[in-house]
């Protein structure tokens, strides 16, 4: 299958307008010695029917589980049908960045609405049009704090998602910043004393997540206070966005930036991507934040309209002085998130409650198993950590029944041998959970 509409006749006519006798002449600037002589070594072309067959074949090599009890940064939530129908509108998904506002009011307004919902949800005043994902949003926030403050130390909670910490490390290394990890307390929250000890006037930012990787809810107010006391900024992340339906958002607790993964809002698991980075901030940082911003304005007749604004922050104008290098973002995922949030409305709280009910049920059930114990004492949203006699064996048993068990924390936390991080969303039924416990008995 191919997709160029040129007939031999078209090509001949066009060649004559261009003044060439053969297509090859168009490539005359490529030095002869570099001109590819052989055909690319990739599989032969497929018809559309063959394509479907080949791709279905590959897709079916994956084994979809009956049930997933792993969250750990990617969450299996129900996606209302409307989301796919809207995101599938060709006018949205075959457009690009709305550089030409008058012809792009659709995506511009949708993103403006998304920004508003995210700002409200995170308890901040502003949010950008999206970053690549939660981890890179976190890393960009860290770099931004360092650049704004001319400080070079980044403090990260060890209870933050391990991959987020890795990305923060990578971005920090590239910019010559040092990263210091703060341990967690027995509660599962960040160790406030250790944090305070580490806070000095070289600290640009304190990065935490709430709920954190252990599902534990952090107490943001004292963290903000501690950071601000030393002139550092507080960047608060979250794991599952639906938690924002019920938890006090970090923005309302004084955080300077709230960044996190927006996948939970209407985006499928997709084996890890595309997702979307949420990036929200205090108003005062508006001209410093990375990413696109849609702003309301008026047209010549005073009619409301929307444009990309504050573009002087961006790379295509400011180049090396830009607030970030980001160009393409995750607009369609942000659109999905906006539709999802607008669809649920206040039901987001109900959904969050349901997640809590399910989680409490699963936790209590598992705790009845012999040798299973709670690891942390602080409250959790929809994830929790239990230590069990043999985590690998437990997961093996579940896998044999088509169930993805808990995330094995020893991979990232050697000290947490046999600790499993479980997640129970609204997709997990009581019967499922009873079955899980029966299997593990």
């Amino acid at each position, binding site marked *: 299958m191919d997709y160029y509409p040129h007939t031999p006749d078209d090509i001949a006519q066009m060649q004559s307008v261009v003044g060439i006798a053969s297509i090859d002449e168009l490539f005359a600037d490529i030095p002869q010695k570099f001109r590819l002589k052989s055909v690319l070594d990739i599989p032969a072309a497929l018809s559309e029917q063959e394509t479907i067959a080949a791709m279905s074949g590959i897709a079916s090599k994956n084994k979809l589980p009956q049930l997933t009890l792993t969250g750990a940064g990617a969450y299996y939530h129900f996606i209302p049908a409307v989301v796919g129908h809207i995101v599938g509108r060709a006018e949205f998904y075959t457009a690009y960045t709305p550089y030409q506002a008058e012809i792009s009011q659709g995506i511009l*307004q949708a993103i403006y609405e998304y*920004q508003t919902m995210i700002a409200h949800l995170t308890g901040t005043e502003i949010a950008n049009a999206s970053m690549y994902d939660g981890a890179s949003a976190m890393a960009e926030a860290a770099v931004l704090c360092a650049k704004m403050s001319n400080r070079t130390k980044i403090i990260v909670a060890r209870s933050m998602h391990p991959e987020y910490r890795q990305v923060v490390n990578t971005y920090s290394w590239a910019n010559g910043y040092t990263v210091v990890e703060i341990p967690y307390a027995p509660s599962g929250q960040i160790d406030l004393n250790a944090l305070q000890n580490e806070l000095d006037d070289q600290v640009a930012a304190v990065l935490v997540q709430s709920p954190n990787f252990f599902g534990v809810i952090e107490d943001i107010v004292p963290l903000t206070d501690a950071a601000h006391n030393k002139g550092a900024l507080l960047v608060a992340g979250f794991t599952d966005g639906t938690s924002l339906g019920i938890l006090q958002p970090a923005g309302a607790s004084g955080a300077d930036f709230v960044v996190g993964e927006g996948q939970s809002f209407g985006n499928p698991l997709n084996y890890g991507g595309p997702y979307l980075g949420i990036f929200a901030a205090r108003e005062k940082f508006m001209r410093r934040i990375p990413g696109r911003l849609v702003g309301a304005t008026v047209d010549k007749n005073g009619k409301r309209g929307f444009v990309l604004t504050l573009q002087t922050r961006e790379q295509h104008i400011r180049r090396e002085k830009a607030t970030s290098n980001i160009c393409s973002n995750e607009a369609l995922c942000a659109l999905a998130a906006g539709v999802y949030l607008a669809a649920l409305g206040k039901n987001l709280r109900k959904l969050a409650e349901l997640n809590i009910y399910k989680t409490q049920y699963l936790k209590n059930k598992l705790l009845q198993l012999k040798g299973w114990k709670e690891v942390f004492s602080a409250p959790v949203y929809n994830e929790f950590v239990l230590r069990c006699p043999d985590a690998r064996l437990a997961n093996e048993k579940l896998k044999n029944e088509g169930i993805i068990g808990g995330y094995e924390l020893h991979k990232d936390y050697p000290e947490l041998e046999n600790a499993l991080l479980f997640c129970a969303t609204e997709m997990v039924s009581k019967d499922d959970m009873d079955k899980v416990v029966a299997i593990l008995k």
Partner: protein
Amino acid sequence: MELIFEISKPGRNAADVTASDVPAVNIEDAIGKKYLRTDLDLPEVAEVDLVRHYTNLSRRNFGVDLGFYPLGSCTMKYNPKVNENVAVLPGFTGLHPYADDESAQGNLQLMYEMQKYLSNIFGMAEFTLQPAAGAHGELTGIMMIKKYFEKKNEKRPLILIPDTAHGTNPASGALCGFETVTLRSNSEGGVDIDHLMSLMTKDVAGLMLTNPNTLGLFERNIEKVAQIVHGKGGLLYGDGANANAFLGKARPGDLGFDVIQLNLHKTFSTPHGGGGPGSGPVGVCAKLVNYLPVPRIIKTGHSYSWSGKFPDTIGRIRSFYGNFNVVVKAYTYIRSLGAEGLTHATEMAVLNANYIKEKLKPYFDLPYDRVCMHECVFSGKRQVAQNGVHTTDIAKRLIDFGYHPPTIYFPLIVPEAIMIEPTETESKETLDTFCDAMIAIANEAKENPQRVKDAPLTTPVSRLDEVLAARKPDVCWKRS
């Protein structure tokens, strides 16, 4: 149109929540009152209102499926529908990123093969699919360059970037701690070799080159350029956003590029989603392979697995494995077209650009009059001089003719730039009518300049006040 907040009404919703099948718990007890929010200010609308709102919004947006979208440097080709159908197969959408490798063999195979195909198409030793977009790929590539010199214990704080480069290039350099030095273009739109020679010192980590560059011109002296950079121990970075210009014709690896990022959403036809998601794989030559981000896919016998055991890696640059579902579409595209299809696509893309260039040459200034590759760049200088009609005006007027405007005011070295990239999926008829529109506008600019300056005349809003938007930014709706 009203905002979703403005049509909101307490008590409505478009998505319900299932009743609990487990006992409710007291939330305050379970979580603690201080951790709970008291407000939740989201829109409340019925499903019918939600659908109408967004459907009507969509109708105020222009996409490739509606018409010609010659946005230069963005490769807005038509995206085949079969790719969309493939990408929503439950096997691809349903898997958790932490599913064990055994359960994800399909995905791993696809990603592994994709890396191999890209390596072959671009002549690189190895690819990573982790970066989420082109600029993210740039960053990843530059980080590997940084790591390379770090490992060699060489301090090279500078990076060279041509004046034609896309803004992401210097910004990526900066986000990676490099100081960027601007390299001048010569009179034919290529690298000024003398300038390059003077800049390329042992302090310079390398050169970020886009080839063909953003003027749509192939760097004739590429061999020389590579020699100079490599001669001083530097590395040559390739911005592959313009790869649609040379598939099957030449391979960056052969040309001397050490690292290259691709934009799958451009070259490999994944839809741009109103601004993303994209995908920005990075390919490296052999000497940089160890620095690739982790995790990487390992093939053992017939099975695939993730491995993080690469001590020299730059680390991770995002969570999980990249924009996997975008990769599925690009992979499908490559499999559909095969080698000849890709090559022919490039040929038609280049033919289309040259066709437009020839047809519009009499009407607009063409600063570099040579064979172009996948795009051509005009200047609106003449129209400014004649009647004060600017490139913005021309762009806005094109909207009235049913086209998305080209990229404008970029590259920066061309005053009043009009950068037209037709891509291969456009027919001669489309190009002809587009050129007719451009010519009509050129005439209008002479005969009725005000009309052009008043454009667009057919859109739901007329020209928007961008200055106001920036002066009094309103980026978040507030209840009044």
